[in-house]
C-alpha cells in the first residue's frame, strides 16, 4: 500500500556538458563553469549554429557493457550511465524488490538520431541488408526507458513521455502517479541529445537556435540581447520512491516532490494569456504552498525575447516584480531537450538539500521588460521550497515544486 505523503527523491545521476557524474557537475555548476564549446561530435562548421553543450570525457567502454555497445545510441549510453549512478546513489538493489514494484519512466524528444542517421545512410548507400538489426529499437523514443528497465531488472509500470523540454518534469508526475497506484520505486528523469547532422537540421528548423559563435554570448535568457539558445546533450536520472517505502529502508533523501502541474498554451494567433502562470499556480496549489513559500525558481529560460518576456510576466504576476530569486543554470549546459528540466530538478534538489542557489552565467543583468531577480552568483541560505519551470516547443508548460526534507 502506498503512503499519501509526497514521494521522495533518493538518488541522482547526471551526465551534463559541464560535468560527468553528479559530483563533478554540481561542483562546476556552483563555480559557474560552463560546457558550451564548438561542436566536436560532427563537423558543424558549415551550419548556421556551431556551438553545443557536449558531455566531456565520455568513454563509452568505461561505462557500458560490451553487449550493449553495438545496440545503443550515444544518448542512450549517457542515460544508462546516469541511471546506474542514480541507483547506486540511492543505495538500492532492484533485485531485492518484488518483481513488479519498480518501473522506469523517462522523457525523450528525438530518440537515437545519431544511430538512426548512420543506419539510414547505410540503407540508401549500400542496401537494406547493411542496416543494423538494432536499428529496430535504437532510434526509438522509448529506448532509454527500455534499456534501463532491462539492464536493472525493473519490470514495473514503465513508459516514455514526449513533451520536449517539459518532459523532464512531466515524467516525475507520471512516476508519482505510478507510486500512488502501488509501485515502490520509479527510475525517472531524462537524458537526451541528438548532436549529429540529422538532429542539428531539426534543431535549426525549429528556428530558436542561436547563431552567435562566442560561447559566452550565444545563450542569454532574460537579456536584452538574447538571440536564441544553444543545444546540448545529457540530463539527469532520478530515483523517486514512495515515502513510506523509502523511510522503511532508511534511504537518504534529497527532497520531496511536493507539487506539480501541467498546462497547454492557447492556440497560436489568439491573444489569450500563455499557460505558464496557471501551471505555476496549480503546482503551488498541489503542494499546498503560497507564493511566499518559494525561495528560488529554476526558470525555463528560453533565450528568445518573446518567450523570456512571457516567463518574466508569469513570474511577476505570481510573485510580484523581482519578487523571488530566479536562476537558469542551463546557461552552463545549453538546452538539453527532454533532459533539461530533469537536470534542473537535480539542481533544485541539491539546492534545497544544501541551502545553495546555483548561478546563471553570461547574463549580467536582465532586460528592463524582464523584471526578474536573476541570481548571477551563488547565494547561500535556507531553501525550503524550489519551483522548477519547463516549457516545451508546441505549447507545453510544466511546473514542479521540490521541498527540503529533514534527515530522519
Amino acid at each position, binding site marked *: 500500500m502506498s503512503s499519501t505523503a509526497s514521494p521522495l527523491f533518493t538518488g541522482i545521476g547526471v551526465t551534463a556538458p559541464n560535468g560527468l557524474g553528479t559530483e563533478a557537475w554540481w561542483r562546476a555548476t556552483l563555480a559557474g563553469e560552463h560546457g558550451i564549446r564548438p561542436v566536436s561530435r560532427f563537423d558543424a562548421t558549415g551550419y548556421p549554429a556551431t556551438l553545443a553543450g557536449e558531455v566531456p570525457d565520455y568513454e563509452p567502454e568505461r561505462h557500458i*557493457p*560490451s553487449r550493449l*555497445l553495438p*545496440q545503443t545510441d550515444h544518448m542512450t549510453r549517457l542515460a544508462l550511465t546516469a541511471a546506474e549512478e542514480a541507483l547506486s546513489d540511492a543505495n538500492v538493489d532492484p533485485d531485492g524488490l518484488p518483481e513488479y514494484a519498480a518501473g522506469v519512466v523517462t522523457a525523450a524528444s528525438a530518440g537515437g538520431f545519431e544511430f538512426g542517421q548512420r543506419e539510414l545512410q547505410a540503407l540508401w548507400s549500400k542496401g537494406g541488408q547493411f542496416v543494423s*538489426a538494432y536499428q529496430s529499437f535504437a532510434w526509438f523514443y522509448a529506448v532509454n526507458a527500455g534499456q534501463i528497465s532491462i539492464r536493472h531488472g525493473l519490470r514495473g509500470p514503465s513508459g516514455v513521455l514526449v513533451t520536449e523540454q517539459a518532459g523532464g518534469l512531466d515524467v516525475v508526475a507520471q512516476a508519482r502517479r505510478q507510486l500512488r497506484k502501488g509501485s515502490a520505486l520509479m527510475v525517472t528523469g531524462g537524458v537526451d541529445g541528438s548532436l549529429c547532422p540529422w538532429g542539428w537540421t531539426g534543431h535549426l528548423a525549429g528556428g530558436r537556435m542561436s547563431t552567435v559563435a562566442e560561447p559566452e554570448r550565444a545563450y542569454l535568457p532574460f537579456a536584452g540581447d538574447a538571440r536564441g539558445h544553444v543545444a546540448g546533450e545529457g540530463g539527469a536520472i532520478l530515483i523517486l520512491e514512495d515515502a513510506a517505502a523509502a523511510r522503511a529502508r532508511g534511504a537518504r533523501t534529497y527532497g520531496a516532490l511536493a507539487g506539480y502541474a501541467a498546462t497547454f498554451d492557447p492556440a497560436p494567433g489568439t491573444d489569450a494569456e500563455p499557460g505558464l502562470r496557471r501551471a505555476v499556480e496549480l503546482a503551488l496549489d498541489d503542494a499546498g504552498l503560497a507564493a511566499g513559500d518559494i525561495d528560488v525558481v529554476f526558470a525555463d529560460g528560453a533565450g528568445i525575447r518573446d518567450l523570456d518576456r512571457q516567463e518574466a510576466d508569469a513570474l511577476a504576476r505570481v510573485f510580484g516584480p523581482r519578487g523571488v530569486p530566479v536562476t537558469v543554470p542551463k546557461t552552463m549546459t545549453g538546452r538539453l531537450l527532454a533532459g533539461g528540466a530533469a537536470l534542473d530538478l537535480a539542481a533544485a534538489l541539491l539546492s534545497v538539500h544544501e541551502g545553495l542557489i546555483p548561478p546563471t552565467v553570461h547574463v549580467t543583468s536582465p532586460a528592463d521588460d524582464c523584471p526578474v531577480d536573476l541570481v548571477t552568483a551563488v547565494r547561500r541560505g535556507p531553501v525550503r521550497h524550489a519551483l522548477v519551470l519547463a516549457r516545451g516547443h508546441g505549447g507545453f508548460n510544466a511546473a514542479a515544486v521540490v521541498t527540503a526534507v529533514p534527515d530522519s
Partner: protein
Amino acid sequence: MAEMTLEQLTGLLRECAGEEEGVDLDGDVLDRSFTNLGYDSLAMLQVIGRIEQDYGLTLPDEVVAEATTPRQFLARMNDGLSEVARPA
C-alpha cells in the same frame, strides 16, 4: 570458399553484438547454446547479416533456427559454403 572457423565466428559475435560479462568466447564454447552465451535472436540476426555480407551468401532461415550452438552453426554454415563453392 574457405570454411569458417570458430575463431572467425566468435570474432564476429564479439564485433557485432559484444561479449556478455562472465562469458569468455575464447574458452570452450563450441557446444554451449548461443542463448547461454548471452546472445538473443536479435544479436544472431545482426551476426548473420554480417556473415551474409562478408561471404556473399544468403543463409536460409532454418539454418539459423536449428543451429543453437557454435558447433551446429559452423557445420550448417560450412555445408552451405561448400555448396556455394560447388560448380553448377
